[in-house]
């Protein structure tokens, strides 16, 4: 007999739980669930006599005619969505950092302003905030719909991001501050060289989530007719009545963009890991 025969055998989990936990069984269950959903959707649309016209969808991405290559409406809308989200995200990061630093500052006025800003923004529906910016502040400050959208999304997500920053900064142990102070650093030097570089790894995962949220909530500006992805989708449907195909397509485009973003950031996260 070999040596292991003398060792105590570790008890095994019951058979049924080992079967369910195995990879092939998991995959089978997954495929079954997805299959049921797809089939239900298909038979459902069959029974209501829906006329699928997927062949008409690609031209909304691009066309290739005698005039040459041309981007379609969905592609243009996607670029607008990305532009809107990117600008609003930049603004949100700036607002978030300022609010977080105010909140953490020892100035009573600063933390009070930050707290009031946060409570107002967080306790208001995004849609109402957008109406406020477009219909109230818009005429006062002469904002066009695109600018109003950027500012609205920037303010809303800035409030969320400030909490991410605050949590990230608070996650750094007090000893790091004391170490920085003991070598004579000012508060801003301590932030810049010691605290923020270490906070980034705490902030990146929730910041990615917020960027994804930003892209998703940018769809709301379709109510003030900014020509981004969702608005384009509505326009196409009012022309063609292909609501199933177009909404599936639009949903897929959002999904692909946010997935690419998430995967990209996971590489950046690895770069900022402290243990090297």
């Amino acid at each position: 007999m070999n040596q292991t025969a003398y060792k105590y055998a570790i008890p095994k989990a019951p058979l049924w739980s080992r079967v369910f936990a195995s990879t092939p069984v998991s995959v089978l269950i997954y495929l079954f669930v997805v299959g049921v959903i797809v089939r239900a959707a298909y038979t459902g649309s069959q029974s209501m006599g829906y006329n699928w016209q997927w062949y008409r969808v690609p031209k909304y991405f691009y066309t290739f005619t005698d005039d040459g290559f041309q981007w379609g409406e969905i592609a243009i809308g996607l670029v607008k969505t990305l532009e809107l989200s990117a600008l609003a995200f930049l603004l949100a990061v700036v607002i978030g950092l300022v609010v977080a630093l105010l909140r953490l500052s020892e100035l009573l006025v600063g933390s009070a302003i930050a707290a009031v800003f946060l409570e107002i923004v967080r306790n208001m529906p995004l849609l109402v905030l957008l109406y406020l910016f477009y219909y109230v502040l818009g005429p006062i400050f002469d904002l066009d719909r695109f600018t109003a959208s950027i500012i609205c999304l920037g303010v809303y997500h800035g409030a969320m991001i400030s909490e991410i920053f605050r949590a990230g900064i608070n996650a750094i142990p007090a000893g790091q501050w004391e170490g920085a102070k003991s070598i004579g650093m000012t508060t801003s030097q301590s932030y810049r060289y010691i605290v923020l570089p270490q906070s980034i790894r705490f902030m990146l995962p929730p910041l990615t989530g917020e960027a994804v949220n930003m892209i998703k909530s940018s769809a709301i500006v379709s109510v003030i007719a900014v020509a981004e992805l969702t608005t384009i989708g509505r326009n196409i449907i009012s022309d063609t009545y292909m609501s199933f195909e177009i909404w599936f397509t639009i949903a897929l485009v959002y999904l692909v963009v946010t997935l690419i973003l998430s995967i990209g950031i996971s590489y950046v996260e690895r770069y900022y890991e402290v243990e090297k």
Partner: protein
Amino acid sequence: MTNKTPIIEAANLDKFYGKFQALKDISLSIQAGERVVICGPSGSGKSTLIRCINALEYHNAGKLVVDGIEVYEGSRQIRKLREQVGMVFQQFNLFPHLSVLENLTIGPIRVRKMNKSDAEKAARECLERVHIPEQAEKFPSQLSGGQQQRVAIARSLCMENRIMLFDEPTSALDPEMINEVLDVMVNLADTGITMVCVTHEMGFARKVADTMMFMDNGQIIETGTPEQFFTAPKTERCQAFLQQILVH
């Protein structure tokens, strides 16, 4: 020890945390180059006292002057003070995102505005003095506790402080690493720097201290030379404390 003007002078310091009084009417005077060891039971205010010297905490009453600078909350000279006063913490407080060399140079470069190559040269000399020149490129998490604490001492050395404060520098270390840190501190004591050290390492205290201070309950109960302190402590409280820690 010559009788020059004191480099650290405290008169009637009080410190409160809420209702709890951590320091009660502390007065002391430490000369330049003097080596002071403060001991006492936990919660007696030792750490609070040396953290006040470095302005990491502020006293609530009394007067504290360190290297000619009066310490009070809101003073514009606090940074200048901290540049003169180095501190070694129980938990090391190294910067985990920076290499050992960067830990040592970030102060000289960012605070003293030294150029990078000079700072690195000085940093390598400091590492030499704490006997770990070969660890310069590593990160703190790759070092043992004793090595990390020596890096922390080197970080203070690089700032060329006139005063070094040690807040229980060996209390977080495995027993076998304590001596390598104490050796470095003994060498440091010979350089004429002013040292204020909170520690329970009585062998070290006996070897380097000019003055022993015993604290209990927020007060300095006894001050004296090591010889007098260890052989004939005046107060009962101090006798009891010494018996407790020297018996084993």
